[in-house]
């Protein structure tokens, strides 16, 4: 589904991603962990199509297309969904109506009819319940005045309605209390399927107590330093990220020699 090959990306001349390789197949859940500033959000926003990044080399292929050629909205129509680390507040734009517009744009792209008002309402109610999002949030402006946790739930709610093929969750677990974390995890688990893939970006192992990943990758200094199964996350939990520094040092020393 997604194939990232030797991707080098810089922002304003500063290299941020320094040779990322990642293969994600339908049905898989990949966790990407790593210290702050390692490039996790850069990678996820880049996949969703955010402007301002310079691709220095490498490629990203998604469903046999050059993903980097697509506009952000086209990526969304093709089934990419990013749950933002910091969801934006948009006063004056209705949360539910935005979702309906998004859903209809996706349907239109696939030659389907618009969803009827009745069906949409049913869908929205059902998914709101799934993430335990109070229905009062449906009629509010996008994320406006939502608490941190409510914003994250809203992201998962949107994901549940839009039913993406590839969902990227950028630290959706950060700042959540244990209840909210469970709700978010359940939302993800309910959506897990053969056709759908997830990239879970997280700083902590605790999300992975609830969502069992197929692969765990450690991103540091713009590179995936290690990949493994879920036991790698446990190891990180025990050891912290400190070992990365030493290894990077060793690597760079080796490079210098």
């Amino acid at each position, binding site marked *: 589904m997604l194939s990232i090959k030797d991707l080098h990306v810089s922002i304003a001349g500063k290299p941020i991603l320094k040779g990322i390789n990642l293969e994600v197949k339908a049905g898989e859940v990949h966790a990407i962990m790593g210290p702050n500033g390692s490039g996790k959000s850069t990678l996820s926003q880049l996949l969703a199509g955010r402007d301002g990044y310079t691709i220095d080399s490498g490629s990203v292929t998604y469903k046999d297309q050059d993903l980097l050629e697509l506009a952000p909205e086209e990526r969304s129509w093709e089934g990419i969904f990013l749950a933002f680390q910091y969801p934006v507040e948009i006063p004056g734009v209705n949360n539910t*109506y935005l979702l309906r517009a998004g859903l209809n744009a996706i349907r239109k792209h696939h030659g389907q009819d618009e969803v009827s008002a009745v069906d949409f309402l049913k869908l929205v109610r059902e998914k709101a319940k799934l993430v335990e999002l109070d229905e009062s949030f449906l009629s509010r402006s996008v994320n406006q005045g939502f608490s941190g946790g409510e914003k994250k739930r809203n992201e998962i709610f949107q994901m549940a309605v839009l039913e993406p093929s590839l969902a990227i969750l950028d630290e959706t677990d950060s700042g959540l209390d244990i209840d909210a974390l469970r709700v978010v995890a359940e939302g993800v688990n309910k959506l897990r399927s053969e056709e759908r893939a997830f990239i879970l970006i997280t700083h902590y192992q605790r999300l992975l107590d609830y969502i069992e990943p197929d692969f765990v990758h450690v991103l540091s200094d713009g590179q995936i330093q290690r990949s493994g199964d879920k036991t790698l996350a446990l190891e990180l939990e025990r050891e912290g990220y400190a070992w990365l520094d030493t290894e990077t040092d060793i690597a760079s020393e080796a490079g210098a020699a």
Partner: protein
Amino acid sequence: MNAALKQIDAWQTSLAPTLPTLPGNDIDWLAQRRSEALTQFSDIGFPTRKTEAWKYVATHAIAKTTPALSQSTIVDSTQIAQWRLDDCDEIVFVDGLYHEGLSHFTANANIDIKSLAESFEHSPDKIKALLSQDISDANDAFDALNQALLRDGAIVTIADGAVVERPLHLLFVSTNTDNSVTPINNWIFAGKNSQCNIVETYIGADTTNNLTLSRTTINVADNAELTHYRSQRESKQAFHLAELTVKQNRDSRYNAYPIALGSAIARVNVEIILAGKNANCTVNGLYLTKDKQVSDHHIKMYHAVPHCTSDQLFKGVMDDSSRAVFNGLILVDKDAQKTQADLSNRNLLVSKFADINTKPELEIYADDVKCSHGATIGQLNEQSIFYLQSRGVARDQAEHLLTYAFINDVINRIQLDALRKQIAALIIGRLPDSEFIRELV
């Protein structure tokens, strides 16, 4: 003779002969006042770039027109149907003249409405009292000209203690297509303890190119509440120059909604005097410009006595190569202790050729006050655009949606349903992707 002087001369030559045709001109003091005002007009001359209050608005496009006085053309009810407001009493003026046939209003003890033109004859002394302002105090040449051409307008008196349920709509329709000048002078007197909602609408068909000179003078008596909407939507060839003067007395509330959408050049000069303790004023303003429109707001909020509050928010959206000017002064007298005054001006430039000159000013002579002011000029937020795109909204749609979202809160503050819907529909209709926006807000 330089060009500006020649133009003033041409205006005077064109307009002087119409003075004797104005209603009430057989009244000596009135005839004299008009003629003095015309002299004053020519003495002051058209504003130039050196005229501080007109620094950013060039008037040569107006000066070169040499207008005649507007004449009322025949309008039937179907032509103005789209501009009416449901559930309101309506007083209609066509090209500055009261039109009884188009108006509907049931006289009652709560509110009295008179046409200025008719009042000259019936109650000249009353009018004389209204015109206490000295001609030499005219704000500029256009203000003086409006005094010279003093012809018609509405005189609205709300009785003491009256709670007027039905909003009053003063609808000023322009039809002239020959660069004529339309003088309008209104007075609103909100009696003690009264409550009323008044809408002033200035509008014209797309082909009209009149110069509207409007002056509205308001007195809000003790403990009265007046909500005043001013919706200016004249044609893009028209010019609209307006004066709004408000005096607030003790415990009064005045809520103003100056909304400027139309005209090639639009200027509103507002002066609000908080003259009685505990008076409270809120202003929610909106201006939108596109193409080559120029829209100018000059606001003076004068706190003359202690314990008054004023709270102003103005939002502007400038597109294409249009321009706006905002000048908001909060003036706090040395006696006006415990004043609370806030002024915020937020602007969105949606085209790189659009421009805004904004200058909020504080002039404070009291020491125990809470005043704040601020202005922002911004473009659309890239993060918001990206967020919407990531949810499937195409970039251009996202931009247009966010443009509307920027001003949506001001529109939503309009309490009158009919007007709010009308303004929202109109503004959405001006934007590309209107249908899409309609579905999302």
